[in-house]
Every structure is written in structure tokens, then in C-alpha cells.
């Protein structure tokens, strides 16, 4: 069975409210020493990222790949796809409640209905969607560019 492992590391100092951390995308080195703190999750991000923003980045990039594959398999390879993901943390329950995916595509030969159908199919195969399934509400909005 083929597997691919990806690793990330974070160093944290101090308590939750006043402490802070830095993380590395350790497998690739694409980001190193990025700052993260509790305040970035709930207040102005102020140039730092947060777990929810990273979930949004993972979901947007995973979903874009899934949709590009679904469209190509259906004979309508996309020229370009733009996916915005919004990840919502409910501060009352400390739960990640929702990810909203806004998808815009340039797909020659496909109408809105066909695009919507492909987008829904891709949501079912996307590994990040399936990792969140049942725990997080996933919403999908599509439009053709």
C-alpha cells in the first residue's frame, strides 16, 4: 500500500494566552519559523497564521487537485481553478464548525450545471473533505469564470 508521510513541527513557549510558538513545514522546508499564537485564532491575525487558517489552506489545495482530476476524467480539463476556503472556529465550543469552499473555474466546454456536478463529485473524493466528514460542515459554492 503506497503511503506518503508529511511532517510539521511546532515549538511552543509559555501558557496559552500569553505564550507563542513557531512552526516549520519540516518535510519540504516551504515555510520555516512561521509564528502562531492563540490570539491569531480569535483576534486580528496580525501577520501570523493559525491552525484554522492552515486547515483552510490544506482544504483549498486538496480540493483544487481533486476537482482538476474529476474535470479531466470527465473530458473537461480546466484552464484554471480558484478555490477560497474559509474555516470557522466557534469560540464558545472550541469546535471547528464549518469550512466554506468558494470555487471559480475556467473550464472550456462545460456549463454551470456540469461544473456544479463535478464540484460535488470532487468534494466526495477530496481526502481532506473525507478527513473532516461528519465533524465539520463543508459548504460548496461554485461559479464559472
Amino acid at each position, binding site marked *: 500500500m503506497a503511503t*506518503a508521510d508529511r511532517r510539521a513541527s511546532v*515549538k*511552543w513557549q509559555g501558557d496559552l494566552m500569553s505564550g507563542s510558538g513557531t*512552526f516549520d513545514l519540516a518535510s519540504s522546508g*516551504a515555510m520555516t519559523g512561521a509564528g502562531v499564537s492563540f490570539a491569531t485564532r*480569535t483576534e486580528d491575525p496580525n501577520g501570523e497564521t493559525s491552525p484554522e487558517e*492552515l486547515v483552510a489552506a490544506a482544504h483549498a489545495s486538496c480540493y483544487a*487537485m481533486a476537482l482538476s482530476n474529476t474535470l479531466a476524467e470527465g473530458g473537461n480539463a480546466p484552464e484554471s481553478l480558484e478555490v477560497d476556503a474559509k474555516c470557522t472556529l466557534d469560540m464558545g465550543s472550541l469546535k471547528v464548525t464549518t469550512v466554506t469552499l468558494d470555487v471559480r473555474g475556467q473550464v472550456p466546454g462545460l456549463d454551470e450545471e456540469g461544473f456544479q456536478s463535478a464540484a460535488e463529485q470532487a468534494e466526495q473524493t477530496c*481526502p481532506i473533505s*473525507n478527513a473532516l466528514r461528519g465533524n465539520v460542515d463543508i459548504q460548496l459554492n461554485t461559479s464559472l469564470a
Partner: protein
Amino acid sequence: MVLARRRADIEWRGTLDEGEGSFTVGDWMLGEVPVTWIERTSRIENSTSPEELMAASHASCYAMALSLVLEQGGTPSERLHVSAACTLDTVNESFKITKVELEVRGKIPNLDDDGLREAAKRAEDICPVSNALRGNVEITVDTILEEE
């Protein structure tokens, strides 16, 4: 009730195998980060993948949860290092994220190994990212108490 939303944008061009995308996260990155299918399954320097971003999200979320549990237990940490490895696998010919392995090293005055293991378990129970993956992805936690 206060709500927090965080956004990440990705643009993808072309097919899965040959295409590529780039994403931006807030305004803290200098420019855009490339992301490719090939990086998910093989390895390209300076290009990330959804699994690596998921690992980064989980590591940072879990570190915050554990810092809170330790603080509430009266043994605040001096330093925590959390490493998360996220695995993408093929199951029934489909791609699936099967597990996240968390490795915790902590310098925590006045806490023994058992105390850290117990705190680590409680932190896993409350960690929002752990709970977002619950039931779908296997989550393991290993702990090491650092002396100095």
C-alpha cells in the same frame, strides 16, 4: 459568541498530474507558496502539500491545547515541541488521510512522565483539530519529558 474565521486561497492551473497551484495564507508569507500533486506523493523542495499543511495545523493546535491543560493543572510548561506527521494512503484505490502521529517533547517543571502522558491525552480530547478529524483519521500521541 465570538466566531473566528481564517482564510487561505489557492489557485490551481491545469490537470492533477501536470498542473500546479499556489496558495497564500494571510499576509505573513512572502509571496505565494507553490503546491503540486507530485509533492504529495514524491518530494519537491520548497513546495508543500495538503498533508503537510494539515500536519502544521494539527501540531500548532495541539501545542496550544496542551499548554492550556498543563497550565490549568498547575504545571505550566516552559517549552513544548510538537511534531505531527500526516499520512496519505491509498485505500480501495482511493486516496485517504489515514493517520496523524503527534510527538510531544516538553520541558515541564514538577511533572513526571505519567503526568505528561495524562495531560497529553486530555489535550488530545479537547484539541479542535483532533476533534475535526475524529473517527475519520487515526490520531496517536507519543510523549517525552525533557530534563533540561
